[in-house]
């Protein structure tokens, strides 16, 4: 019974983590696409800030999010004792 309750808590946190990572990254990607063509203002490495964000910053942040997710999920699995042997 205690194990089932523990697994329910683990799954709830797993869902929240997945939703936060995927939802956050999807929102980031949508914002990036919206601002990609903004051409006014200062430039970063020759690119308008919107294009720099869309082409460089947002994809890199999403890649970092994937590694962060892998680490956090593994920690979560260990805390609830459902990790692989």
């Amino acid at each position, binding site marked *: 019974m205690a194990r089932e309750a523990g*697994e329910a808590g683990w*799954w709830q946190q*797993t*869902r929240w983590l*997945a939703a936060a*990572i*995927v939802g956050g*990254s*999807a929102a980031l*990607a*949508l914002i*990036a*696409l919206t601002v*990609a*063509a903004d051409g006014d203002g200062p*430039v*970063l*490495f*020759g*690119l308008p800030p*919107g*294009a*720099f964000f*869309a*082409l*460089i910053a*947002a*994809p*890199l942040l*999403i*890649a970092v*999010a*994937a*590694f962060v*997710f*892998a680490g956090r*999920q*593994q920690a979560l*699995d260990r805390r609830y*004792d*459902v*990790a*692989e*042997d």
Partner: protein
Amino acid sequence: MAARPSSHGRPAVLFAAAFVALVVVLSLLDHFGLPPGVLSATVAGTVLVTLAALGINGSTIQASEFYLAGRSLSPALNGIATAAAAISSLGFLGIGGAFFATGYAATAIVLGFVLGLLILTVAVAPYFRKSSAFGIADFLGLRYGGRGVRVVAAVVVIPALLIGLVSALAVAAFLTRMLLAVPEGTALAIATAVVLLSVALGGLRSVTRTAALEYVILAVAIAVPAAVVSFREYGWPLPPLAFGEALRDAALLANASGKALAAPFAGGFAPLGDNSFAEMIVLAAGIASFPHVVLRSAATRGADRARRAGAWALAAVLFVAMMAPTYPAFARLVILRELADSPIESLPDWVFTFGNLGLVKLCGVAATSVDAVLGACSALPGFTGNLTVSDLAIGTDAIVLGGPAMAGLPYVATALIATGALVACLAAAKAMAFALASAIGHDLYAGVIDAHASAGRQLIITRLAAAVTTGFAAWFAAGAQSAAFGVAPVAIALSAGGLFPALILGIWWRRANATGAIAGMVAGGMLTAVLIVEHRFPGFLPFGRLAFDDLTAGILGLPVGFLAAVAASLVSDPPSDERVMTLDAIRRPGGTPFVQETESL
């Protein structure tokens, strides 16, 4: 016995080092006048022979090795093998071409790729791995139960992979012909043989061994020429941080002269329209459920490693995706700066090389020779005998392939990047051919037709399926080579509309059942397919022309697939206790695997 990780990684590392050494030697020989034809044939021939040899070397009669590469791969190795399978011609050539044609709107492709691989990492890969499934049809069959789900999933998976395979083989044949200077049919036969040797003899084991090498080759091929131009032009060898400067300088030159390059003409690799949001969403969903990409998660040792492999795949794809846009930027800059007002007779060779491939036009005609160009240009008013850059139109397909030459690099850089593109196509073709054969031989034959088939019989059927489907794809590619270039997005759209809803709901929604899965796959897949047919054959539908292309056709299939799956699940009986227990076992990373892996073979 499971193979050690190094048995897959070590040969790839050794061959990759040898490849880099070969490129250095050929660069020196290029400097001393080695003919371009010999140079490109040497680099491409060496790579093709090596890939074929590695494919043969990986041959196995063990089912666990053939289907799952022994489940022994490290996350990084499996990640780069996944990246090699995912990139294909769309990632290697299409991103640069799309940037050339549509500017920053093409960011949608980069974001679609990375978002798709993130969804794969978070929401699909660890659960797919824990299920011990061999393919998507197998996974959906295990999760939902019943033969109907397997059959319907196979009906979506097989056409999607077959279409992707046709496209990959067609582009690989085009590049083989360009590099080896052999007839079209011979080039296709060579590309097909390299694919078949890996897939039929060694299955996922051979595909993996070659994929690691393939990723290194394609990454070196796209990064080195861009880094050299970046260093030459701006003093730092980091192309993603230099191409903005190149774009700005090219715009300044165009403004100063009042003449920009003619609008690029669309090719097959970058057939992308102007609906960036739809492109990104469909690409993300399609990549996250692309059968040959998802299947790679099965080759890791466990769910945690599948997650980390997904993250590595994302990083590896992003590396290539960030290099690709630099080619159009540097090419545009150098052409405007160095070719404007040059005499037609002294134009560089690349104009005519790519002109003969139909990828460069001057004054409205393909730049096949100086005489052809002079003939066309002299008919234009005000022609002085010199090049007017606004008369120069470059096809989107040529911008990455020809980028090094356009930027003034030696021929070895062109041979290198064409070899990288070839390898990207072969890697995707092998992964698709294997996933196709596995879907037929294991998921369909052993899962539906003959559940008691021995491991040996399954292997024979799978190898035969590999031979037949790859041969069929090659035959189709031979018949419609140029048309086949652009069909890769069709495969992605079919995966997004037909598979993504059932896959995601199967993992994340306990109430989803077999009826819902079938309804989702049928509704989403059919709607996507109908919209693709309407795009390809206008007038197919009675209510006028719709604004969808091959990729964005999935944008309606995706929500309709979700809605149909949810509605059908809710109006039918809840899943049985056995199905719910299966789902719980799939979700939990530890514990006994749901299916006894190699013992089941």
